[in-house]
């Protein structure tokens, strides 16, 4: 277990991923017509992927355990991990809620709320920042929304709360 490094774990995950897709390829219906089965090409890719993952695993195991990068503080606890990836996790979580709230908030309000909240969590919640971030969010998303809606004729999700076309 001491010889397992990050790349080896990734290779094992890729092998499992290949296994799942290979198993799922048996759900693909086989029609009576056509010379190339719809499952054939994906299976070729999965076989190549599995083979490459095996080579990757062998390379990783031969390389030995990971050495911690000198420039970054070591991650010792779950808290350290969250601190290290805090900004990225905020981006994922806020974007997730932005998408989940689209039917209610629509793209204009949802987009402004997303950018405003994201700028604050990334840049800080001081009074000056709140005003600045609100202005940036309203102007940038408002301008882009107007450009797509009025300039390019794209109907963006309106939401329940605010529907300018009602």
């Amino acid at each position, binding site marked *: 277990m001491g010889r397992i490094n990050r790349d080896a774990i990734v290779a094992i995950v890729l092998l499992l991923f290949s296994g799942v897709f290979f198993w799922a390829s048996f759900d693909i219906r086989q029609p009576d017509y056509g010379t190339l089965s719809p499952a054939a090409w994906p299976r070729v890719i999965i076989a190549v992927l599995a083979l490459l993952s095996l080579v990757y695993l062998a390379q990783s195991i031969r390389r030995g355990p990971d050495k911690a990068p000198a420039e970054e503080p070591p991650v010792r606890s779950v808290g350290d991990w969250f601190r290290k990836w805090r900004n990225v996790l905020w981006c994922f979580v806020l974007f997730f809620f932005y998408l989940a709230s689209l039917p209610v908030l629509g793209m204009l309000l949802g987009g402004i709320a997303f950018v405003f909240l994201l*700028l604050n969590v990334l840049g800080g919640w001081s009074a000056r920042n709140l005003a600045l971030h609100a202005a*940036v969010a309203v102007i940038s998303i408002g301008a882009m929304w107007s450009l797509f809606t009025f300039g390019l004729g794209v109907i963006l999700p309106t939401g329940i709360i605010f529907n300018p076309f009602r």
Partner: protein
Amino acid sequence: MIIENVMLAFGEILTLKTLLLMMTGVAAGLLAGAIPGFTIAMAVVLTLPFTFNMPPSQGLATMVSVLVGGLSGGLMAGILTGIPGTPSSVATTFDGFPMARKGRPGLALGLGVWSSFFGGIISAILLMTFAPQLARIGLEFNPWDYFMLVMFALTITASLAGANMIKGLIAGALGLLVRTIGEDEAIGMARFNFGNDALLQGFNFIAVLIGLFAFSQLLSDVRDPKLARKSLMERTSMQVRIEHLQALREIAKRWTNVIRSAFIGTFTGILPGAGGSVANILAYDQAKKASKNPEEFGTGTPDGIIAPESSNNAVEGGALITMMALGIPGDVTTAVMLGALLIHDVVPSPSFISDEPVLAYSIFLAFFLATFMMLFLQSFMLRVFILVTRVRMYVLAGVILGFCGIGVFAINNVEFDLWTLLWFGIIGFVMRQLGFPLAPMILGVVLGNIAELNLSRAMAITTDLSPFVTRPWSLFFLIIAVFSAFFPYYQEQRGKKTWTRYYPAALAACAAPPLFMMGGLVRPVLAAALLSLAAYLLYQALQKRSAA
């Protein structure tokens, strides 16, 4: 015929709206190229949603303009701050920054701008000359040849994308697999939808591209909380005037360097996978070798700015040659361009230039015009660039993430595409962190259906697999794919292991038989030349061995 097509293309491009869009595109590209952390590919990917409702020629002209602007933008940051705006302008900093520090930033910028201009123009001429010729060769391709060409493009991209070739190949295979999700294009059977109806349509590949490339790049830019709160650059308050006349005088004295570097750039661009990041270093190295004063390189010599800037602007002309002539994108940016063509129901293939001459010549013309626009906009954008560098990274990244959402929804007006953006943003970010190159995956996504359709066509003609090795073009691509797969090991072991001495000779010898098989006059002569080269290289290798 050509003149007629050029005139029709002029009619398409020379409208006020198109010219304004192109100007905006060049300006946006110059800015995106100048900001470290924002790549040209990201700028082109983010331009795509704006072009959906435009006529194809207008949309593509806008995207070409962003591309041309982006290629030239990197020099501003590189020369003024020593931090290259894009990987394509890394070598520009070697002499551009020392020259600026010696008190000649205006001359350094002038040399960069004019070299970019000449590089772009030479490349545009080569694009217009070679693309139709290459397309004529492409018409000889059968499904077996096409399938093998895609495999070659993926292999060489993986081998050039990073230090670890296996990771590049895995990324390429993942891209191909992603493209198989949903109904297959040949007979419409559902694949890997896991009971989800939304997945029946497959992932929208533009959403996948924006997620993999732009979304994940923005996440990487804000990962470090301290860096995310810093201004984009600290040292850009200097007032600079570009010294155009002096720069032109210096370039006139060094015109061979401009032409050589532009050719290096164009031919690097033609090769799938090798983009500006390779070309600028290669051209710099060649300029140094050809110089009478190589010791001056790195101290602020004009040749050290001319070579990388001339070559990196020429790269996209080369990449467009392959994309327009064969329908195979040379790099991520041309993969996005290919996506833009597909959105407008134009399928690039060898018959693209003859089937859609006006559109093809509009792209040629846009490349020319955008190069001129770049020249005039550079001085103005320099001032804007200095203003933009005061913005903090997290503000720019947050706003662009918001734009990504709106832009991706606009593709099909489908919310599922936004989820695709998020999931592929996460996948792209994780892959970046784990050291997987994204370019092979993106090419896999773009080329996946081309490969499958051609395999399907080949199987419909005959289930015999031997044409893959008996047809000359297919065999040729197979051979160079195998050699390109070993190329990273060759580079790593060169001079250390005996087999590396014979690698170039073996490549030349193995590439010759398919050329003989093609018949005619030129190709067998070329094959004979390759065999002679192989014999010479082998002789040299044996001489070295006996000397050792």
